[in-house]
């Protein structure tokens, strides 16, 4: 087990190192800098700005400085928002993004698993078809179409919830969370249904029933445990989906989270901020993949040995 953990952590560190290098050089090579505006800047001022942000040093020295900073959790200054460091901006946005992401995962898991079980137990009945329709809609209709539609229906027409922003406490978070959980409800319910049907055919489930264990207990203790393995395996990639989603959701609902910061930074070519958020997302994704692997290894001994 320890070797398994060590291997995963080592791979994660390698990925993160590659991500740091790649983002750094991609950002240096990308055309147009944060200071190339239409307005002419006098050469002296440009020199001064470059010196402030250490852009006058050789590239490898800048890279070294950046990596050195990262090791001290210093992401550098933002080139667009004077007086703010990238760390400050991330810290201001992270609570919103984490709240939305966390609840979206919780709701998606609960509703998705419930729908999947219902579909598997009542195959080819209206319940199953309903779950199937929800699944297909969640997968095929992008959240940047559902989001605005929900805004029109629940905010503009019915006036139940605010259109967006963050000034109304939990009320402003309801729509973003619900919309973000929809595609994941779809994936999780499909996955649960499929693996439930497969697991119900397994020999050990039949054995449990033959031993006289009641249907409810067989379902909860035996079938569900086996059936949820692929679902747990999906939670790692789901984090990636939540990251993607949070970018869209925060744009659609004008939430000042890090996804919104990321898009603004990309459009404004605020490279340090883009890099900082990329690394944060990358780190989160790697962390969740490792956690997922660990939980799977813990639940299913077969996973540990497959390398």
């Amino acid at each position: 087990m320890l070797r398994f953990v060590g291997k995963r952590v080592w791979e994660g560190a390698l990925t993160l190192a590659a991500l740091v290098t790649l983002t750094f050089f991609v950002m240096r090579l990308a055309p147009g800098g944060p200071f190339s505006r239409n307005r002419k800047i006098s050469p002296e001022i440009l020199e001064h700005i470059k010196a402030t942000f250490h852009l006058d040093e050789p590239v490898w020295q800048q890279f070294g400085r950046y990596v050195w900073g990262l090791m001290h959790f210093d992401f550098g200054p933002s080139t667009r928002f004077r007086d703010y460091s990238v760390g400050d901006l991330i810290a201001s946005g992270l609570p919103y993004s984490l709240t939305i992401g966390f609840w979206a995962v919780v709701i998606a898991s609960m509703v998705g698993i419930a729908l999947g079980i219902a579909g598997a137990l009542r195959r080819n009945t209206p319940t199953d078809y309903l779950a199937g329709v929800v699944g297909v809609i969640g997968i095929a209709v992008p959240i940047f179409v559902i989001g605005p539609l929900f805004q029109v229906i629940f905010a503009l027409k019915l006036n139940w919830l605010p259109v967006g922003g963050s000034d109304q406490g939990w009320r402003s978070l309801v729509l973003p969370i619900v919309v973000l959980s929809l595609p994941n409800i779809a994936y999780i319910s499909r996955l649960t249904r499929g693996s439930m049907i497969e697991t119900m055919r397994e020999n050990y489930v039949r054995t449990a029933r033959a031993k006289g264990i009641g249907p409810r207990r067989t379902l909860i203790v035996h079938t569900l445990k086996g059936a949820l393995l692929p679902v747990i395996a999906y939670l790692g990639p789901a984090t990636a989906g939540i990251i993607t989603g949070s970018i869209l959701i925060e744009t659609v609902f004008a939430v000042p989270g890090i996804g919104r910061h990321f898009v603004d930074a990309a459009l404004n070519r605020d490279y340090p901020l883009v890099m900082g958020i990329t690394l944060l997302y990358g780190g989160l994704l790697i962390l969740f993949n490792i956690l997922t692997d660990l939980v799977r290894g813990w639940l299913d001994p077969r996973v540990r040995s497959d390398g």
Partner: protein
Amino acid sequence: MVEIAPPKSLSTFQLQLRRFRSNRLAMLSVAVLALITLACFFGPFFFPFTGEDADFDYINAPIDFGSAHWFGTDDFGRDLLVRVLEGGRVSLTIGFLGAATAGFIGVLYGAVAGYAGGRADRMMMRAVEVLYGFPYVILVILLSLLFGGGNVALFAAIVFTLWLTPAVIVRAQAQSLARREFVEAARAGGMTARQIVLEHIVPNCISVVIVYGSLLVPEVILSESFLSFLGIGIKEPQASWGNLIQTGTAAMGTDLRLLLLPGTLLALVLFCLNFIADGLRDAFDPNDR
């Protein structure tokens, strides 16, 4: 002499095709998708104006099938229907071309890695694993910034991030194929590694590739519209479903039409592609039910 009719036997591929044809939902999806594709590619020619021509007599015109602008115009007086069709042309082209290119790269990479085995395989797969650990959308955004924006940049960025899945799948397939007798025989018969990969490994992976490749198409289309929606992909005045939806969201408080037409069409295409992918999987992958 009596002519003996050859026994009517069907190849595996014909059987798979027949199985796919009997899937009504998938066939309906093919028809709808074909219709939308035709409309997007040829529809705009039937209008006397293009999606970038502004008609100043009709600014923000509502839906009116009697006028020249069936679904009205946007706030520049540009015809909505034509813009949506032209946007579809871009989205569908990038979708299919992107999936094909990503699939092609992935198949070759995976086939070579799987056939070569050993150290080369480990190195190649380690690279894939590292790239897999990246947050996909972030990577697409970074790359499209690197390539300077525009259609080609968008295309390159999407392909660059999407070839990984086919590579992994084909590699697994190639690995098991490489140990089979007919590959052994080919090697003994003096075929070079290159010939074996191209003539034995790749063709035998095709059905897996078709199944997973069909899932790539909606993913590419979604990525494209996603980026255009954020303002990073295809930019005005060129239309794409993503940036049309973006424009629609800005005006949704007063006029839902601008959001609904491109949104519905995008959702419809994604529905069809998903059903087709499901149908292909059921037909080509007997292990899966």
